[in-house]
């Protein structure tokens, strides 16, 4: 099985994530879509590592996972906090910071 298919999968997952971020209103879903994009990237990195026969991509993927874990903590805390004050998790409702 050619590693290229992993790349196609990665691209499809990334696109789904992107569309989710751009189109969905629920903050939790948007957040999950971001995770999806990160993991699609991880998949691409690992695939490139396999193709090139080096470990660089895998090391990179670990870094991305660490960042994603930290980001989840901070992001979920923010979403919970926003939900507590506004009784809503819609990203469109949190639009006070504007012109």
């Amino acid at each position, binding site marked *: 099985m050619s590693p290229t298919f992993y790349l196609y999968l990665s691209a499809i997952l990334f696109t789904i994530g*992107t569309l989710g*971020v*751009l*189109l969905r*209103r629920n903050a939790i879903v948007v957040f999950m879509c971001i995770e999806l994009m990160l993991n699609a990237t991880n998949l691409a990195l690992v695939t490139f590592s396999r193709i090139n026969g080096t470990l660089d991509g895998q090391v990179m993927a670990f870094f991305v996972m660490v960042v994603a874990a930290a980001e989840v903590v901070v992001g979920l805390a923010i979403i919970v906090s926003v939900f507590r004050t506004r009784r809503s998790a819609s*990203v*469109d409702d*949190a*639009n*006070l*910071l*504007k*012109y």
Partner: protein
Amino acid sequence: MTHAALHAAATLTPTMHTTGAFSFTWLLVVIPLTSATVLLLGGRRTNSWGHLLGVAAPVASFVLGLILFAQLIGKPASERSFDNHLFSWTFVGNFKAPANFQIDPLSISFVLLITGVGSLIHVYSVGYMAHDPGRRRFFAYMNLFVSAMLLLVLADNYLALYVGWEGVGLASYLLIGFWYHKPSARTAATKAFVVNRVGDFGLSLAVMLMFATFGSFTFTNVFGAAGSADHATMTAIGLLLLLGACAKSAQVPLQSWLGDAMEGPTPVSALIHAATMVTAGVYLVARSAPIFNVTPTARLAVTVVGAVTLLFGAIIGCAKDDIKKALAASTMSQIGYMMLAVGLGPAGYAFGIAHLLTHGFFKAGLFLGAGSVMHGMNDEVDMRRFGGLGKYMPWTFATFGLGYLAIIGFPGLSGWFTKDAIIEAAYHKGGTSGYLLGSAALVGVVLTAYYMTRVMLMTFFGEKRWAEDAHPHESPEVMKWPMVILAIGSVGLGYLLVLGSRFADFLAPVVGKAEDTAFKPIGLVGILTFVVMLAGIGVAYLQYGRRRVPAVAPVAGPLVVAARHDLLGDAFNESVFMRPGQYLTRLLVFFDYRGIDGFVNGFAAFIGGTSSRFRRVQTGFVRSYALSMFGGAVVLVAALLLVRG
């Protein structure tokens, strides 16, 4: 005598280093300056004795001046120039400005005139200003004036002369506006100041041009190099000096301020606007003799200005009903004679200065007489409200009368000697210009005789036309005696100066000397002058002595109306300089507002407007931000691919 020889004669006199009394020359200036400082800083505490100090200062300077004069006379003619070096004012590179005073025959003549006549007028002012609450301030300003005027004539370089020049301008401004509660006095002071700025501009340019050309402004250096300098430059310097002289001496075209300057107290008019300050222009030309000697063009300009002004002033004098303004117009006219004389070059310098000295006496006397009349008539100045005052003010009448005879050039009095000499010198110049200048001076004699006789008749003769509450009386002793002394000077100074060409010889080391300076009054010109003078008196007598003088100025022809309004000098200035100037200002203001400000403000408004439109992009919707980030990322990737592919 050729120009070169003249120039040599004017600069040959070696400057001696100061010894003995001459090292105290600086005291002449410092004494009145100290007094002015004390009086101005002392304030009200000095009110009780301020006038005494104010009189003592010029008298002290006068005594010192007499001592210096006696010392100077004791030296041989070729050694009569002494420099009193005080300190180095500024030394920057080539720019050297030493503070030096110079005593020579020309400056000592002025020192004696300024301090002598000045002292008399100060004494007179004690009485004249006795009831004025600002008497101390008055004396402070007068002392300041004397100090600045002495600095002007004692300076040995043009820069220090310029300081004195501005100093007398300041004192003149302060004294014209002395009664600052009167709007007319304030306006007159401002007018005098502004008109004088025009002249000061010319003088300062002349000084700068000298520095640019010769690298120095000391008289010695400038005059030493004047002969070999570029002719056009010398003409330019001469004309710029003339511009300065025109403003200070109220010569056409900068004559308009002098009539209004009569708003000041009468002693001010006598000292500053008759005897001394207004003659500074004549001094400037005479002092710059070596410059004018090499440039006939500038000399011609000086003579033309003088001739025009002497007629201009005389015509105005014929129509004025205000006694002080009539005398002011006369001053203008007489200074025109002096300008004419000094413009003639070596043939005229001595006569011009001699007329300046005698004029200083008789015109100061006339002004003090006018002040005395006003003092007795509740400050009335309209001659149509005078009449028959001779009986009530015998001393004023007698002294004024002697001054009158002197100014019209009655044979034997001082004005006769000096004015006749100027007319002779003008005719002697030869050619068409000499003929025209001499004839202008001769017409001036008729007019002078006419307007002065008119003043005499309207004031001291005829029936009374007084206001009801007028009680004319003779002035107190302190005012009487200065008038008497000035009258004696008006009678006798002519003999002293002109006979035997004494004064011309005295001045020769400074201004050079023509071969022919002997006084010959009984020539054709002398007789002609006498005849036209009698004609002027006769016409005035027929008009104002035989007929009643109306108490209100009668309706008159256009020339008389113009003369009553200073020959439309103000109207000319207004239409030629003021209005176009205002339009120019408005144009510039418009350009400033619409052009410069318009561009700057418009640009700011453009940036502001665009920004507030762009601000709308910040919607607050997170997803739209995400979209733009996505778009940006796509563009970046596309760009990378393009560059690599």
